[in-house]
């Protein structure tokens, strides 16, 4: 077990290292550099650009730039954000908790909802309910994240103004509210973006879990349970679900990239000040270091997600635990 954990940790570290190299290559295959893209302003003279390039070390030979890049990454430095006039680490550091909050609520919510839908479908397999739910999950599964977020935004803030238009808190009154009022204010702002992301993510969970349950049903132990005289409900809950939950842990790891990109669009549309919001706005201002920082942190999150899922899997599966 310890050996497995050590191996898996080393593997994750190697992946992050390769990601850093890939990102460096991505930056440097592009024509131009941050200063040709950021400063389209004709008033900025070539001399100023050269000075800036020298300041940021962009005039050095590539191998030297690479060493500097790796060195600063190793120290947790991601560069300077032009549009925020703060270091990228600070910008992303203050945005990250909001993204993690949104993602974790959606993660828990989508797995609970997805498994519930799958259980209902499998309990009534072949029925109208099953087919309808399959249709709905396929529809949600095919839904581009940003379009679904726009629709939910339009519906529940414009047409039926139930929820606030965006942000994490109400900027005018939040500071004057009591503690309970502040918590309520935060929750009110969280509900719609979190629900949107939850629904988007639950579709693949439901589809995956339904297939996993149907896979398990022909197994011998299910037949045994049925012969014991257990009701269909007991069989599903105690025998089928337990065995079909193991692959769910793998799915948690796999769902991270989708959850993260979903969060990017949801944050943009609901003005939720997380990492996605920062990075998407950085596209508009051509704040290249911030975008690259977002790519690196996003990839680290995904790697961590799959690492945690793998370790959980090893803990949950008795066949692996003994190793």
């Amino acid at each position, binding site marked *: 077990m310890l050996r497995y954990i050590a191996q898996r940790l080393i593997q994750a570290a*190697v*992946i992050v290292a390769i990601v850093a190299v890939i990102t460096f290559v991505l930056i440097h295959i592009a024509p131009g550099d941050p200063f040709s893209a950021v400063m389209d302003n004709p008033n900025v003279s070539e001399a100023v650009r050269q000075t800036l390039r020298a300041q940021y070390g962009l005039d050095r030979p590539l191998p030297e730039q690479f060493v500097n890049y790796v060195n600063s990454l190793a120290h947790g430095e991601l560069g300077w954000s032009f549009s925020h006039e703060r270091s990228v680490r600070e910008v992303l550091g203050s945005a990250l908790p909001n993204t993690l909050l949104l993602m974790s609520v959606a993660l828990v919510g989508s797995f609970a909802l997805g498994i519930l839908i799958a259980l209902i479908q499998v309990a009534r397999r072949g029925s109208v309910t099953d087919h309808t739910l399959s249709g709905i999950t396929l*529809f949600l599964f095919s839904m581009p994240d940003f*379009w679904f977020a*726009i629709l939910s*935004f339009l519906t529940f803030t414009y047409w039926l103004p139930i929820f606030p238009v965006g942000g994490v808190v109400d900027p005018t009154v939040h500071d004057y509210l009591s503690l309970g009022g502040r918590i309520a204010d935060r929750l009110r702002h969280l509900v719609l973006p979190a629900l949107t992301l939850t629904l988007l993510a639950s579709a693949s969970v439901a589809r995956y879990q339904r297939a996993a349950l149907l896979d398990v049903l022909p197994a011998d132990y299910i037949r045994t349970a049925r012969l014991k005289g257990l009701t269909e409900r007991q069989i599903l809950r105690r025998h089928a679900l337990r065995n079909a939950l193991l692959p769910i842990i793998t799915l948690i790891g796999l769902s991270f990239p989708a959850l993260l990109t979903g969060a990017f669009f949801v944050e943009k549309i609901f003005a939720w000040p997380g990492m996605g919001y920062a990075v998407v706005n950085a596209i508009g201002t051509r704040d290249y270091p911030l*975008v690259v920082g977002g790519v690196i942190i996003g990839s680290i999150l995904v790697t961590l997600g799959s690492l945690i899922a793998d370790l959980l899997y090893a803990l949950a599966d008795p066949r692996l635990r003994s190793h």
Partner: protein
Amino acid sequence: MPWQTQDFAATSGPTPVRESPLGLAVRRIMKKPSSRVAFFLLGVIVLVGLLAPLIAPYNPSAQPDIVLLKDLPPSFAHPFGTDPYSRDVLSRVIYGTRLSLTIGVLATIVSLTVGVAYGAVAGYVGGVLDAVMMRLLDAFLSIPRLLMLIGVLVAWPDFSVAALVVFLGLTGWFELSRIVRGQVLALKHAEFVTAARALGARRRRILWKHLLPNLVSQIVVAATIGVAQVIVLEAGLSYLGIGVPQPMASWGNIIWDGADQVGTLWWMALFPGLFMVLTVMTLNILAEALSDAHERR
């Protein structure tokens, strides 16, 4: 005289006419009403794209009257309304169908080529090369595709649709190459491959004639899903303003045109989105049916 493998089938007498596995799969899925509906709808959407110049009521880039005809809600003259530049949204959606489908198909061809080649080489050669190639693949897979594309596209000050297609294609082959590698690895020592090798077939021939034909249905499933993914990604990037450049119309960039005033210009988000969801859904239905047909084989 060494045996010529290609003559082997011919010399063994008349062989019964065999349907290709793919043909069989297609015939099987067409029995399902849901796939028939999906196939029909997809056909209609493809026709809309192909016949765009014939059916679009207006020129998609024409700005007839930027003051009087802008931001009009849906009406008989403009069933999908007009945009802030007075362009007809229906015409733009029709032309957008053409562009979005083209980008989806072309980018997927790029992904298939790279993915099959990478997976086949890793699986067939094996050893250290395979290990290195797979670690590299792990790293590629841990960068979310959208983020990777944002990273590249922001660095590029100006880019054409062709470049967009290449980037979309080059970020879409990772899962496929893993499938191909797994299959090649599994089939490498199958009896028919050993037999072919014993008959003196070369590596390239074994790959092309013996291994890859066995992967066709999986590749087709991956391609179908791939097109759907590219359509969604292209729309997402265009919605962020770094996809298809203006004044060309794609589903995503029509939505982007109205994004600033999405509350008032709802028709600019709704109609292109409906086309997009319908397309992606039909592709997903067909992919699912194809992979079911493959598994039951």
